[in-house]
């Protein structure tokens, strides 16, 4: 009897689940269909005509780049300073944002004996910094500071504090308290406990998130260049405006190649950090 009623309740549960899944799928399909219909009607160009033209632009700029022959690589070489500028924006923003994110993360972790009222304050601050759209801050700073790389850098760094701060504080929440307690037992100060008890535990994860963020920030800096900050984006805006296909192709190639390289290298390093191969090398036997 018990088994039968249990079976019935399981079947009921399963049926309800199926009803829910079906409903979810229906809602998603509905959103997609109405959304795309609506989006197409709002778009200035239609989907089908656009599809036919899809390869026109990439084709055009490739053709122009091909026509340059070997001189194309000279153009690519000429844009290296722009690439360096974009990478500088991303790197500086990630470093400054990362350092401040560490401060915020330590201030918002319950298990690290900070002054309790500070915890919700720093958490809300991180939420605000994460939610604030980079574009708005960048445009505002461009207006005040003039068009240069620095507004983009500050805007990206600001967002990085919020995004990395949240990830860092999650890492902090999961540390092993015992080394910290051991250090406290031998009379270590708060800073010493942080340095010898906490940092060694969290640094590998921090590095992994840091590299991930750097990759995201390279993309963000390139885009912000387009609205007035310097670097690859600014050059792209100029070459597209002038209709100079071979230069556009060179810039796109640089952006694509650098993102690929950073992506692969950071992926490799991160895998190493997580599986502990890099870590094992540094610890003497």
């Amino acid at each position, binding site marked *: 009897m018990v088994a039968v009623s249990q079976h019935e309740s399981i079947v009921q549960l399963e049926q309800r689940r199926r009803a829910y899944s079906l409903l979810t799928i229906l809602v*998603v399909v509905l*959103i*997609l269909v109405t*959304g*795309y219909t*609506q*989006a197409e009607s*709002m*778009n*200035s*160009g*239609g*989907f089908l005509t*656009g*599809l036919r*033209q*899809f390869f*026109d*632009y990439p084709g055009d700029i490739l053709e122009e780049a091909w026509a340059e022959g070997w001189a194309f690589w000279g153009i690519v070489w000429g844009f290296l300073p722009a690439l360096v500028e974009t990478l*500088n924006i991303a*790197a*500086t923003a990630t*470093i400054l944002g990362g350092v401040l994110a560490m401060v915020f993360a330590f201030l918002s972790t319950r298990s690290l004996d900070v002054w309790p009222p500070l915890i919700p304050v720093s958490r809300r601050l991180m939420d605000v910094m994460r*939610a*604030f*759209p*980079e*574009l*708005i801050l960048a*445009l*505002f700073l461009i*207006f*005040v*500071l*003039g068009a*240069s*790389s*620095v507004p983009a*850098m500050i805007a990206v760094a600001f967002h990085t504090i919020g995004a990395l701060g949240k990830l860092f504080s999650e890492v902090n929440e999961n540390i092993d308290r015992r*080394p910290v307690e051991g250090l406290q037992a031998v009379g270590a100060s708060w800073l010493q406990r942080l340095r*010898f008890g906490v940092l*060694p535990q969290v640094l590998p994860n921090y590095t992994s998130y840091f590299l991930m963020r750097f990759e995201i920030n390279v*993309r963000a800096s*390139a*885009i*912000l260049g*387009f*609205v007035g900050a310097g670097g690859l*984006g600014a050059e*792209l805006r100029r070459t*597209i405006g002038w209709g100079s296909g071979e230069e556009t192709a060179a810039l796109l190639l640089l*952006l*694509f190649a650098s*993102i*690929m390289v950073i*992506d*692969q290298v950071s992926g490799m390093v991160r895998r190493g950090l997580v599986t502990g191969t890099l870590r094992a090398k*540094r*610890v*003497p036997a």
Partner: protein
Amino acid sequence: MSTPPAPLAFPLAFPLAFDADAVMARHVDAVRHVRRGSLIGLAGLLAVLAYLVYAWFAFDIPRLIATAEPQRAVLLATDAVAHKVHVTKGLRNPGFEVAVEGERTATYDTPPAWVEADTAGDRVIVDLGDGYSARIDGAVLTLTGPDTAPIRVEATDRGVRIDYRGARPDWVTEGVNVKTGSLVKFEARPSIDKRVQVTRSKIEIHRYFFGWENFWFPFDSPLHGLSLGALVELALSGDRIDPDRSNVATIFDTFWSNPEWQHRTVFIALLETVLMAVLGTLTAAFVGLPLAFAAAHTFNRIAVIRFALRRLFDFLRGIDMLIWSLIFIRAFGLGPLTGALAIAFTDTGTLGKLFSETLENIDRKQVEGVQATGANRWQRYRFGVIPQILPVFVSQGLYYLESNMRSATVIGALGAGGIGLVLVETMRTSRDWENTLYIIILTILLVVAMDALSGWLRRRLIQG
């Protein structure tokens, strides 16, 4: 790095006697190890500092500090929360008017109480607040303040003639024609909320007031200036303002098509941005999932396809949203479809890679359990695999939705449309910063609302 206790220091059994020498020997090792760690850390820190010093000069911070215009921030902040009323006396094209933001559609028929003027505008007294007042007699302006001698400025055919009758205050700037060396412009800004300008063609007085003017209804509409109570009364009353429509429709329509604030345009732009983010993310998630199955070695034995799909994911991600947007803008023109496709293409790569990694790490036991009951391939996927990856699918999908909300504003600014483009255009014309602030507030509210919604959905879907 914590030092692992050297296992060889302790023989198989825990020593009963306290071996001080062994501890000391390990102590030396431990200290050396910690010191080495500190040195590596210090070197890393120094390298970062050196890089930052390089960046300081690469970004040319000293020049930036020299050329920054912090007063622009003050100006922007003031203008964003205040509106100004222009009192203009034309000299070359004779005329006199008092208008909000100097707009022809927002001209006062009878000047407000702080402006005393005869109908022709030959004799005008403007109360500027804080004890300042300006008086216009024909082409002569007299500015009096609480602690400065009256300043008399006369607009002549060739420029302006200024008579200070005392020390020249530091809030006055004079404009000089570089060629002739004659004074052509007088400008006084005793405080941030008042400003007086005299050139030979006109005398203009600005006074700032706190608040957003004409936010609800245009200045020249019959609804302008009505209180909320009066509006409700009007909405409920049977006497129609416009005989063809109900009063509620008239009130809404007047608000919606307000030419200065453009509520309708802004709303549609917000909708476009939401459409881009939602459609892009949903498409990426639902295209990425089946591709992820085909790219995971646990589900696809054909290595060539797996390799090709992996490279496809890398390619889609590597092209980056910026490049995709540029290509799609060329092909599909301006609009939400363009943005949605750019987001969908980039994130199919990201989500596909992420899902396939998750699929390779699932627990085989659940699949085998389902297989043991005689389930076929699709049933194994449905009951053995999907339940395991659903939390990752949902939480990552929602996380990307949040992030794409912000991305959609940015690619909008590149030219795909939506609120990003409206924002850039409003800022570029920078006519009225209150409009910009209005759009910024709405954008932030939208992003925060999407974050809250996705957080709520995540909690519901993953626990339920």
